[in-house]
């Protein structure tokens, strides 16, 4: 168990360095504008942490995380809109469109933070549970699961656009004034939002690490490698996948919820097919099976997108596609595997397994 001890010591150091960078270095080194950009990237990275678990470890190609990101985002945005409007009032955009006399019934509970806050996480988890139960028990696999996820993301975006009077349509929900009583125009409060985002990301990483290293994490990899074999050992693989899928959905929901105060908007363009694919591209680039790879990949791709799409808006889409193809073809482990490849170069390879010693049959079978 010596290696285990060393690993957790290293992980502790890793978290300390991460916390120092996020909490001490970044706020000093970056302007307010850059820091709020970083907050946005870190929200996207939270989605990536969940995808790393579900796709990297569990082999579930989650191409519809925009749905869960959107559910969390809209739940938070609805609450903030209602809080801005004041008790009993309708949000500004509803009054503007003037189609409604009263708040729709499904908006009402979101006025209460005790409902809205848990809903940002639990609502996505509930939807993921229902969808996952249906799909995994019916043994829908691989490509069909991915297509279904994409269809759901598309359907949700279309639904939101169609219901402009109650959802804000293409514009989404924006122009937020306050976040639980704090004025969002004040840079100090924007910083506070950044610190919350950074703290939550670290928490999600710790949670994900615990899951990956637990017995459940080993079982999840086993399901990815050979689902049928796991079934013959007496497990129901549907449940194993469901846990990873629902966890990833909860993380995406939380990410969406924090995205709203950090960026100031949620709209259908942020949750449809394209953003859902972009989540996965970031994870693939960073390295889907590692803990930190998805985070670094998501931040790197989002940063490249901001930088490059300002100068070459048309080229970015193609560049992103190219990046994805290159990584899948030449670096399936993503950027995270580069370090490992370098290390392997330096060290001599381990000796191969000695070929076939006969089983020792002196022991009685007590199993």
């Amino acid at each position, binding site marked *: 168990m010596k290696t285990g001890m060393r690993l957790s010591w290293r992980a502790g150091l890793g978290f300390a360095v991460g916390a120092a960078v996020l909490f001490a270095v970044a706020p000093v080194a970056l302007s307010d504008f850059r820091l709020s950009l970083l907050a946005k990237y870190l929200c996207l990275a939270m989605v990536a942490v969940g995808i790393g678990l579900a796709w990297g470890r569990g082999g579930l190609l989650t191409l519809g995380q925009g749905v869960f990101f959107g559910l969390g985002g809209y739940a938070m945005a609805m609450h903030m809109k209602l809080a801005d409007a004041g008790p009993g009032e309708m949000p500004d955009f509803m009054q503007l469109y003037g189609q409604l006399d009263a708040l729709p019934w499904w908006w009402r509970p979101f006025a209460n933070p005790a409902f809205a806050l848990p809903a940002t996480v639990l609502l996505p988890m509930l939807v993921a549970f229902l969808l996952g139960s249906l799909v995994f028990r019916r043994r829908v696999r691989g490509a069909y699961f991915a297509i279904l996820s994409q269809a759901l993301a598309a359907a949700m975006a279309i639904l939101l656009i169609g219901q402009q009077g109650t959802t804000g349509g293409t514009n989404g929900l924006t122009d937020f004034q306050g976040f639980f009583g704090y004025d969002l125009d004040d840079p100090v409060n924007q910083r506070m939002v950044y610190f919350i985002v950074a703290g939550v990301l670290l928490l999600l990483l710790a949670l994900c690490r615990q899951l990956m290293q637990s017995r459940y994490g080993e079982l999840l*990899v086993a399901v990815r490698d050979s689902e049928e074999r796991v079934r013959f050992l007496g497990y129901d693989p549907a449940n194993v996948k469901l846990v990873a899928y629902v966890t990833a959905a909860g993380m995406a929901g939380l990410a969406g919820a924090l995205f709203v105060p950090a960026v100031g908007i949620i709209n259908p363009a942020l949750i449809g097919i394209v953003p859902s694919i972009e989540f996965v591209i970031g994870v693939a680039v960073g390295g889907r099976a590692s803990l930190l790879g998805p985070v670094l990949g998501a931040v790197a791709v989002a940063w490249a997108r901001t930088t490059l799409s300002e100068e070459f808006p048309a080229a970015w889409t193609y560049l992103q596609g190219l990046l994805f193809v290159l990584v899948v073809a030449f670096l399936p482990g993503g950027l995270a595997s580069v370090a490992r490849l370098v290390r392997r170069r330096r060290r001599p390879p381990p000796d191969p397994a000695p070929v076939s010693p006969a089983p020792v*049959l002196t022991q009685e079978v007590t*199993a």
Partner: protein
Amino acid sequence: MSGLVVRDLRVVFDGFVAVDGVDLEVAPGDIRFLIGPNGAGKTTLVDAVTGLARATGSVRFGDDELLGRPVHRIARMGVGRTFQTATVFEELTVLQNLDIAAGAGRGVLTMLRRRRSVPAAVSSALETIGLADLRDRPAGALAHGQKQWLEIGMLLVQDVKLLLLDEPVAGMSHDERDATGELLRVVSADRTVVVIEHDMDFMRSFANTVTVLHAGKVLSEGTVAQVQADPAVQQVYLGVG
């Protein structure tokens, strides 16, 4: 210990009858060999018993009817199998493979925690299958024969009472075959074992009883000597045996 009783088992794939009314009784603690030419329906029979292939008829293990139950429930009733091509979890270590096999009954809290020590059943199985020194190797790096032993070890920690092994010595060297046969003897001390095998030498050395399948039906059954003396079997095997 329980025995296996199969009655009028039929498996049909799109009109093709792969198993055609098989009756089979394997006594508790027996080592039964299931032989027959390629395509005779041996693997399909095991698939039906373990819930993988849809079948009609009846399969009882002890007091439990197995037909119609999902795969993982049958596994929990103490029925385990290996596959024609060894399927272990290649990216996990030998120890992790065995630990997972031992854990179907674990509670949520145990699952969410890290493995802190090696369960007794796992270390005992590691000794039995001779892989104790390789326990931290990824299973994918094992030699072919070692993977087969790991699979058998997984059945041991899973604590199954009926082992169904599909061609466990295919591709093994002579020494490995003998070692595997000895392993089967040890294992059958308190379990019922059914082995599908092509290799006649291996069968002669280690079979207790033999059933010959041909075109989905039982062609002959008995001790090795009885089966070998059966003219119908000699005809099917045309010179073999």
